[in-house]
């Protein structure tokens, strides 16, 4: 329905820079997720796109049109908020009809569209009720119905699933994707939950401290995080970071410090020495790429001590202690071990991400 483009958009609150020269483009009919921790500027960005806040600088385009000076109600958008934002003294019916009534649509049309929207979200039986009589999940559906009733060209959703319980959230994720694909309306969705971003987005934009940390398809972002922030933010349990340096001796290049060392293949070693010569490095390894054994393994393996064991049923997370640091490894569910026991740890060479410690950017 519409392409959204931001060009150099900034927003300041006093001296606090909430959004810092943000530029990105959302494609037509795309499900686009802005992901980041609280206070990273993601909601501010959404509010700027909605026209609820004015950017300090920069331009916002809907297709080829600059919309900076167009007020929110004229941008043909619909929003859903974390708190659902239902008018408390209006019935469900009146709530859904509200945006249409304000636009003075004919009564018959209003009635028909409200009915359609309610049926689409399976809340037709709730129409005469008032918001305070509804459960969280029902309110959520009313908020969604109100958003789709006008058939806007852009959906803006601000953490819509944060206020409903965990079980329902999983269910609603699938339902939201289906709804978006069905309506084919460009959607920008803000969340702090990386699982939502991974599962729902066509593309995800990761924000940190007002800046774009990375943008891309969810799996690409997961596999090739551009920097330490994204690496640490996406994935559960979070990625392990081993501070290390690179040393070459006897034609062999190793990454390591006092407690461990791993061999680096020559191509990678070359990239690292080109991009970050003589730097302190950080080796990032996802817990899934650490294997643990009670006996010494072939290849590079190093000794560590069991710190804690967290059985999850389907798998077991093992916390290992290396020097003063604790790292997490995912093992099979039947792994068993005693605390303080000595174990051997191996890093899967395919799961290694190397970052420059100072710039925090990915090197290889």
């Amino acid at each position, binding site marked *: 329905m519409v392409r959204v483009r931001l060009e150099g958009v900034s927003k300041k609150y006093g001296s606090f820079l909430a959004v810092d020269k943000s530029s990105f483009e959302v494609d037509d009919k795309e499900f686009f997720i802005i992901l980041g921790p609280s206070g990273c500027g993601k909601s501010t960005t959404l509010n700027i796109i909605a026209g*609820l806040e004015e950017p300090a600088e920069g331009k916002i385009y809907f297709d080829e049109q600059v919309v900076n000076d167009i007020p929110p*109600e*004229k941008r043909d958008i619909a929003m859903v908020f974390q708190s659902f*934002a239902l008018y408390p003294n209006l019935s469900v019916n009146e709530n859904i009809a509200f945006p249409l009534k*304000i636009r003075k649509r004919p009564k018959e049309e209003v009635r028909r569209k409200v009915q359609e929207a309610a049926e689409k979200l399976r809340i037709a039986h709730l129409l005469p009720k008032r918001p305070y009589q509804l459960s969280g999940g029902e309110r959520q559906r009313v908020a969604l119905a109100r958003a789709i009733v006008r058939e806007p060209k852009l959906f803006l959703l601000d953490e819509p699933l944060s206020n409903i319980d965990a079980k329902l959230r999983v269910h609603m994720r699938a339902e939201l994707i289906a709804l978006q694909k069905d309506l084919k309306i460009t959607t920008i969705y803000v969340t702090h939950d990386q699982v939502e971003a991974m599962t729902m987005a066509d593309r995800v934009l990761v924000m940190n401290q007002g800046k774009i940390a990375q943008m891309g398809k969810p799996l690409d972002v997961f596999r090739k995080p551009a920097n330490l922030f994204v690496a640490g933010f996406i994935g559960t349990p979070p990625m392990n970071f081993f501070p290390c340096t690179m040393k070459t001796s006897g034609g062999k290049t190793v990454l390591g410090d006092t407690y461990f060392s791993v061999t680096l293949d020559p191509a990678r070693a070359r990239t690292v020495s080109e991009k970050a010569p003589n730097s302190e490095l950080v080796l990032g390894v996802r817990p899934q790429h650490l294997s643990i054994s009670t006996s010494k393994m072939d290849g590079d393996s190093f000794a560590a001590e069991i710190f804690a064991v967290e059985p999850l049923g389907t798998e077991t997370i093992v916390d290992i202690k290396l020097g003063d640091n604790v790292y997490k490894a995912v093992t099979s569910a039947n792994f068993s071990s005693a605390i303080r026991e000595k174990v051997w740890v191996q890093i899967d060479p395919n799961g290694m991400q190397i970052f420059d410690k100072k710039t925090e950017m990915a090197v290889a």
Partner: protein
Amino acid sequence: MNLTEQKIAFVLVVPLIAVAFFVNGYPIVQSFWLSLTDTNLSDLAHYNFVGADNYVNGLNDFFFQRSAIVSIRFVAETTAMVAVASIAIALVLNEKFRGSGLLKVIVIVPWAISEYAVGILGGFFLNANFGLWNGVLTNLGLIKGNTNWLTAQMALDWVAIFYTWNIAPLMSFFILTSLQTVPEDLYKMSRVDGASPFRRFRYVTFPFIRYALLIVLVLTTMAAGSATVIMYSMTLGGPGGATQTATYYSFVQFLQKRQLGYGAALSWYIFIFLIATTMLYFYLLTRRRK
């Protein structure tokens, strides 16, 4: 809750409640008893029991009837003005802007001034010889020569304005507290929906301040309905009884005419009127819910 706590709580609370019960109860009982007698201030020892005579006389007393109408007008004007002023002030205080802290201090100042002094301030402000109001209007060229504002037609309105000046600040802080419970998201939603400022107030703001407003209306009615001191210090009930409210009239019965019994009977009428009005508010503001 263990036994010691219950005991300690009992020791801390009950004596005080007993005293409060007495200080509230004594005047009620005493004033009801007085209202059934012809007690005169100059000779408290000798009085006659007169039954409902004082109440019957009150109904037939032209001056009391007139003062009751003055009272109703005063309560209506004050309540309307306080409601509007306190909501307006609260809406402004709820905005974020530089100097909002200072504005809060300024706003609350009139509340801390005594009702007595407020009346004096009002009298000075409107003084026909040297009041600032005349000074400003003359300097602006809006009036020629000084005008007397406290006339029989306008005096009550002006007293109501100054009474509003005195009590609106506290009420506005009360509304402000409830305004802060309006969810930010709902404001945003209404803007995306394109609701006009009026609709936004009606559907977003009002539902959240409704209860606070009810309390404001009740407290203002109670206060305005029993206001006496401001009439004394601003207009002495005049000119010609124009600002003589029912409470002021009952006060005059007591102080000048020295008729304790009659004054007490009149104050009971006022009390009943205030309770009835309060109940009406509760009915009007809560019936929608059911």
